[in-house]
């Protein structure tokens, strides 16, 4: 039960974090009208994953290993692109909060409605198929008649539930902190998450033999951080940290992380210089904020 719980938690955590940060951002910046986009993306991802997963589990056809890895790997890399877009979109849209450009940016935000749907869709759908296959396998175990047990399904569902609750708590917490601090922290946090997703995608593609070097490890700390432990689960679930990381994964991680974080911090500093003191007239239509 615990082991299946940890799988559910690990698979759900990252998606829950990204989606809750996105929701917190929209609510904090008074853009609640864009929330439906997020829910739509989440709903589509859940529906496709469960539907496709069910068809593969119970239907006459399965999915080959390569196809699954390819789907997982490519979706991960596309997800990185969109999450990166989201980080910089949030930062850009944040600037408008303090003043004049707001309506202009909001028009742009409306143009990015579909991008928001896709961010949410990818955040959830990236590992959605694998999670759905796992859930349906657990369901099969629960429904199989002889020696059947609902334990694995309960554990897995509970794990996913806890991931969603953690996402919700982060959302609640994010509502309380100051907006500019929120951007800095969530932006930096999301960059680390995205770097992990990219490394994960590279690993999937290596397993599918799309990319070489699967056995060329940069480091292996499986001994110190067992993947089955709760901290191994959290590290994997949030940052996609793999105790046995290949050289190519590590390289992709660094090649994404260093420039993206540099640009992010540079832009942040520029903004701080451009507007050294926040206007005294604070209540600039942050009407949606609680």
């Amino acid at each position, binding site marked *: 039960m615990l082991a299946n719980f940890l799988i559910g938690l690990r698979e759900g955590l990252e998606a829950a974090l990204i989606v809750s940060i996105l929701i917190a951002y929209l609510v904090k910046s008074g853009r609640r009208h864009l929330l439906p986009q997020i829910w739509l993306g989440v709903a589509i991802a859940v529906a496709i994953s469960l539907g496709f997963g069910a068809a593969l589990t119970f239907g006459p056809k399965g999915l080959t290993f390569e196809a699954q890895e390819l789907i997982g790997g490519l979706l991960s890399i596309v997800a990185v692109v969109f999450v990166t877009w989201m980080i910089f979109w949030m930062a850009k849209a944040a600037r408008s909060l303090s003043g004049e450009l707001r309506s202009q940016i909001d028009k742009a935000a409306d143009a990015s409605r579909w991008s928001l749907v896709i961010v949410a869709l990818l955040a959830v759908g990236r590992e959605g198929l694998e999670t759905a296959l796992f859930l349906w*396998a657990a369901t099969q175990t*629960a429904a199989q008649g002889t020696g059947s047990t609902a334990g694995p399904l309960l554990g897995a569902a509970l794990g996913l539930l806890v991931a969603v609750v953690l996402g919700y708590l982060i959302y609640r917490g994010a509502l309380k902190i100051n907006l500019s601090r929120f951007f800095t922290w969530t932006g930096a946090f999301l960059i680390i998450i995205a770097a992990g997703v990219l490394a994960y995608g590279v690993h999937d593609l290596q397993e599918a033999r*799309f990319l070489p070097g699967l056995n060329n490890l940069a480091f292996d700390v499986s001994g110190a951080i067992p993947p*089955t432990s709760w901290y191994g689960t959290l590290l994997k679930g949030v940052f996609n940290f793999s105790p046995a990381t290949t050289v190519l994964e590590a390289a992709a991680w660094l090649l994404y992380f260093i420039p993206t974080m540099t640009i992010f911090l540079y832009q942040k500093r520029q903004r701080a210089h451009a507007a050294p003191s926040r206007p005294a007239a604070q209540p600039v239509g942050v009407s949606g904020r609680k």
Partner: protein
Amino acid sequence: MITTRLSRRARLLSLPVRTVILLSTGTVLTLPLLAGCTENTPAGNTDANAGGNPRALTVQATDSECKLSATTAPSGNITFAVTNSGSKVTEFYLYGDDGKRVVGEVENIGPGITRELVLKAEPGNYITACKPGMAGDGIRAPFSVSDSGDQGAGGYDIQLVDRANDNYRNTWRISPSSWWR
């Protein structure tokens, strides 16, 4: 608590919330239905199947063992139904004869769960491995695939493109490895 939040915003969110609710309700409703379908499909994950189809193998994995129903199979599309009766989460791998090249892998096989690995196997020698705890080299054993003349679906040819529409899996089975080589 989430539902109360949603209902408070119901006006703003009405349409998608309805979508979400509909979809989740649909899922809850279809879940038992779909689960019911298991009996109809010969999923290859029951022991009874082990003797029948030589390409449908079972793997009994525990924290210390990795028992396959057979150590050889005819070439073509092979299914390994891996059942974890141990206490740790396990993974099942099929490696090439160098013990490194991953031919196929299925992960997240939680305790009590059965998951399937489907792959197209060419004749040759392989190594199977269960990895209880998801780390290390795993419990390894040799495995061989005999030449049955059936290469499984696949091979990169123009006809496949035409066939792609009838069979999603065939589309995918223009496998990346065939581009790679």
